[in-house]
């Protein structure tokens, strides 16, 4: 990723040089130079900031405090892990299965999405991955992922995770600049700042709202009542909404995101559904378990 940021940066510089040779308007290349300088300042600024961060944390009292609280959290998590374990045999009958009053409709859309995958998305993703190297596709994935950061920051904050919230914010600022519009995950690769992957559905879950009932959306796939509400919240916190883009553009970008993602995971959907007996039930449960896990963290 760093490599790509550098490539992109050098490309910007190349362009600066070209522009000089071409003798374009001064105003234009001053602007470009400013962008270059700014991104470099941010690059080194981030390093300095990271150094400060480590210095602060290495103050003995802080270390002791953070370690103690970490241990506490760990102990709690361990305990709940063993509790799950003790429920292992009881889980047999009482295992939480989400209500599914819409099952006939859900099965219809599951089938629809399945065909959509095999007949449209998979062939498209195959062609797409043939023309674009994996590294570029990962970068494009990073770009779309970066756009979710503001929403994540807000959700962390609502859940009282102030530190995670600031990490998300820092990730967004750093990756959008030093990471070149989010194509590189600068914050993770250089500063080891990791996303907490929060979203509005998890926030609602954190405050006690269950999934209520299972929903399979056409195109969007498995969800439930809570997470569908969450999606609306997420959409309002997505930077795209402030660009006032046409719906064609939004759908186009969403499709690119999806195709790009599928191109990186080709074969996995097939393997999972082909080794399940009732793929609908298997996916429903996987979704349920996966979301429960995310809410707990």
């Amino acid at each position: 990723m760093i490599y790509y940021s550098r490539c992109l940066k050098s490309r910007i510089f190349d362009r600066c040089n070209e522009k000089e040779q071409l003798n374009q308007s001064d105003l234009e290349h001053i602007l470009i130079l400013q962008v270059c300088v700014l991104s470099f300042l941010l690059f080194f600024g981030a390093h300095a900031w990271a150094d400060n961060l480590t210095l602060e944390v290495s103050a003995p009292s802080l270390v002791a405090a953070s370690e103690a609280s970490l241990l506490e959290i760990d102990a709690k998590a361990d305990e709940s892990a063993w509790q799950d374990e003790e429920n292992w045999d009881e889980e047999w009958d009482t295992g939480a299965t989400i209500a599914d009053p819409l099952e006939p409709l859900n099965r219809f859309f599951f089938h629809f999405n399945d065909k959509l995958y095999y007949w449209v998305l998979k062939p498209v993703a195959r062609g797409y991955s043939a023309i674009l190297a994996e590294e570029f596709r990962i970068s494009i994935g990073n770009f779309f992922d970066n756009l979710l950061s503001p929403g994540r920051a807000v959700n962390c904050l609502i859940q009282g995770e102030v530190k995670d919230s600031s990490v998300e914010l820092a990730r967004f600022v750093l990756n959008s600049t030093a990471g070149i519009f989010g194509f590189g995950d600068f914050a993770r690769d250089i500063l080891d700042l990791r996303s907490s992957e929060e979203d509005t559905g998890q926030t609602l879950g954190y405050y006690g709202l269950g999934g209520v009932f299972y929903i399979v959306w056409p195109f969007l796939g498995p969800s439930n009542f809570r997470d569908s509400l969450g999606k609306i919240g997420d959409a309002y916190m997505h930077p795209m909404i402030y660009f006032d883009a046409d719906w064609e553009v939004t759908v186009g970008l969403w499709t690119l995101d999806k195709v790009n993602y599928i191109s990186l995971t080709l074969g996995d959907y097939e393997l999972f559904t082909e080794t399940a007996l009732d793929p609908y039930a298997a996916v429903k449960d996987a979704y349920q378990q996966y979301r429960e896990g995310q809410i707990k963290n």
Partner: protein
Amino acid sequence: MRKYFNYIWKLSVSLLLVMVFLINSGKISATANDAMTQLQKAVDAILVILQSEELRTPERKDERKQLVLDVVNEMFDFRDMARSSLGQNWNSLTQEEQNRFVGLFTSLVEQRYIGKIDSFDNQKVVYRKQLVKGDKAMIYTDIVDKDLEVPIIYKLQEIEGKWLIYDMKIENVSLIVNYRKDFESIIRKEQFAGLVDKITQQLEKLETQN
């Protein structure tokens, strides 16, 4: 949807790594009783095997696959996994039915992951911690790939001095719980006989595909 695909990817990679771990575990289990040390040593050793160019040739593909499967059978507690994937239904089966089901279940789980062997590509394993309580252990690991980090928890049980895997949670999705819901959905409508038929059909379909 995105998250869900992510999960599937992770599920696959993780079982692949379990297989990796299994190949060599036979040698190691005699010396190390600690579940984590066992896992760690085994994974390291098997990463070497998977990366070996010799075994990568197309002629030795089946050999490599079989080698993996032999050890998988030895290290996974497939009988216990089959039992808990059936839940209460297990107790109503005759000994013969149980044995047949264990065989089918084993093949089904093997099929889910065998396809992933070829796509193994230098993923790394990070061991975060192990929790041990009596004869049970949970080992927390991360699999680190180019753009992803996959948390996996292995659940092991010590039986006669040997640690056997009886479940794994990939991104908090338990393999056994997932199969339990899957099977339940079939048994509700078609009883146990229907489930057996369905697994048999599914396995035949996968055989012909390969």
